[in-house]
């Protein structure tokens, strides 16, 4: 009985009281004001004109102006910044290249992360918490520092080249740093825990007798992996891919430090428009378009996570 009764929407005996109301209102208002409202402002500013001033844009409308000001403001909206984005092929290339890099690196992270997660989930039970901690530990250390560490390894006179020269695989140092290869290495390295953790969670939860049952029914191990293990780990694969793909699309630090001048990524472009060119309206337009591109995966990710949370509840 408890099953049906308890899973029904909770109706605790205590009626709504101020404390209960505060619990919802405080974080709700916080996120509303500091997460949602800023996006509206970004959209607003992306429709403004660039100006050499502080702040470096002409405010299109003022909230202080009331309804009249609002109407005046809307009539002054300009799509100039968006037109500019379409006119200069650089932006289109940057968006496209960001998506390509994100897609390829998501696949790479999955490829590298799956065997690690699988090995962890099949490790002796007593060893698993330690392995888990070892995967999480680098995650606690500075992202910037971890990316920085790769500079020392990948540069021309760096440790990788020294090692390869010493072994004799190559006769001349390779140029890895400041290329897309370095960016991929950096991304795989930095985002590996984001993939391994959800994968491990999904694989670890799997009932191992399922594989024994499959073997008992005449299914060889490799087939059993594709027919049973992999489908059951799909929620982890999906969560991991979203956790990598979405932030990588807007990544700034890795392409900036490891990539070269020809590494086009939209996060870098936005940063440059904002800090170097001080063109806030254009930077806002870049952000709005990036957001529009990412809305679909973000919504999919949310649905996936909410379903997972409900399943676990």
């Amino acid at each position, binding site marked *: 009985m408890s099953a049906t009764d308890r899973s029904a*929407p909770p109706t605790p005996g205590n009626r709504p*009281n101020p404390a*209960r109301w505060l*619990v*919802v209102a*405080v*974080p*709700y208002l*916080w*996120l509303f004001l*500091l*997460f949602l409202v*800023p996006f509206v*402002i*970004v959209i607003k*500013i992306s429709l403004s004109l660039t100006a050499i001033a502080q*702040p470096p844009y002409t405010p299109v409308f003022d909230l202080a102006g009331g309804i009249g000001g609002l109407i005046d403001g809307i009539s002054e909206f300009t799509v100039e910044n968006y037109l500019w984005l379409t006119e200069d092929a650089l932006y289109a290339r940057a968006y496209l290249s960001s998506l390509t890099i994100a897609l390829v690196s998501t696949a790479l992270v999955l490829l590298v992360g799956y*065997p690690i997660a*699988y*090995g962890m989930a*099949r*490790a002796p039970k007593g060893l698993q918490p330690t*392995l888990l*901690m*070892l*995967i999480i*530990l680098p995650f*606690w*250390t*500075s*992202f*910037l*520092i*971890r990316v*920085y*560490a790769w500079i*020392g*390894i990948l540069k021309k006179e760096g*440790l990788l080249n020294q090692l390869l020269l010493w072994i004799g695989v190559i006769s001349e140092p390779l140029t890895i740093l400041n290329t897309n290869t370095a960016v991929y290495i950096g991304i795989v390295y930095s985002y*590996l825990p984001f993939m391994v953790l959800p994968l491990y969670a999904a694989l670890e939860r799997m009932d191992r007798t399922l594989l024994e049952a499959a073997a008992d029914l005449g299914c060889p191990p490799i087939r059993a992996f594709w027919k049973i293990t992999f489908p059951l780990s799909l929620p982890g694969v999906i969560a991991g891919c*979203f*956790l990598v793909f*979405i932030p990588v699309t*807007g990544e*700034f*630090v890795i392409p900036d*430090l490891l990539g070269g001048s020809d590494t086009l990524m939209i*996060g870098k472009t*936005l940063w440059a428009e904002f800090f170097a060119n001080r063109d*806030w309206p254009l*930077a806002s337009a870049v*952000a709005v378009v*990036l957001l529009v591109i990412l809305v679909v995966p*973000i919504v999919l*990710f*949310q649905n996936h*996570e*909410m379903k997972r*949370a409900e399943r*676990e509840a």
Partner: protein
Amino acid sequence: MNSRTSWFNVTSVTLGLAFLYLPILLLIIYSFNESRLVTVWAGFSTKWYVELFSNKGLLDAAWVTLRVAFFSATVATVLGTLAAITLVRFGRFYGRTLFSGMIYAPLVMPDVIIGLSLLLLFVSVDFGRGFWTIVLAHITCSMCFVAVVVQSRLVAFDRSLEEAALDLGCPPVKTFFQITLPLIAPAVIAGWMLAFTLSLDDLVIASFTTGPGATTLPMKIYSQVRLGVTPEINAVSTIMIGLVSIGVITASLMTKRRQASRIRAERQAAANR
């Protein structure tokens, strides 16, 4: 499992861990390098550490960063815990979809977008930029991570414990502080630690939302790294890695020991009943 697959498992885990740790290890080793050239070993030296402690700019930045991290993690933990309670306990309420959307979106939202949007908010309401704007920005992002961490614990929480407290005459708010909070404390602490390191780590959001006079350590490191690799940064990194590792390892050893003694006690109880 046959031996071939287990061999595969051992190799993949070992290689994976090596990949994760080798760069960090090299970074640490070269922080003790005598030479300024990061890639040439010229003998053991702690001179970069000495130099570090006379670099006032770096130390100031470190102090700012620690303070930002402390304030933002603390507020984010309170807000994130409230958000988690809302998500797990309040069922369906008006605007729930929007709320959970605002919790999950920042987890994956690129930093550049969050940083830019918050900066534009601060500018448009004419809020003086600096230390506190970074704190506000970090709270906003971190609270969502805290919410997710605490949520997973709350989902597994046996609600009959709260019901038992109510049944024994304890009012709801008191029940939260006497029963719920002590029992979800590990997740709340983990959430705080996560928020703290996220804040320590952040370059992009801090760069957007900072103002004059508030330079965080990542911003300092970033500007120096752009100029070239220096052993001084290796030394800073080593210290940070060391501090974090000590913290995390101590915390996990403590929970492990508690668990072990708990398991022993449970076995004893089962044996001599």
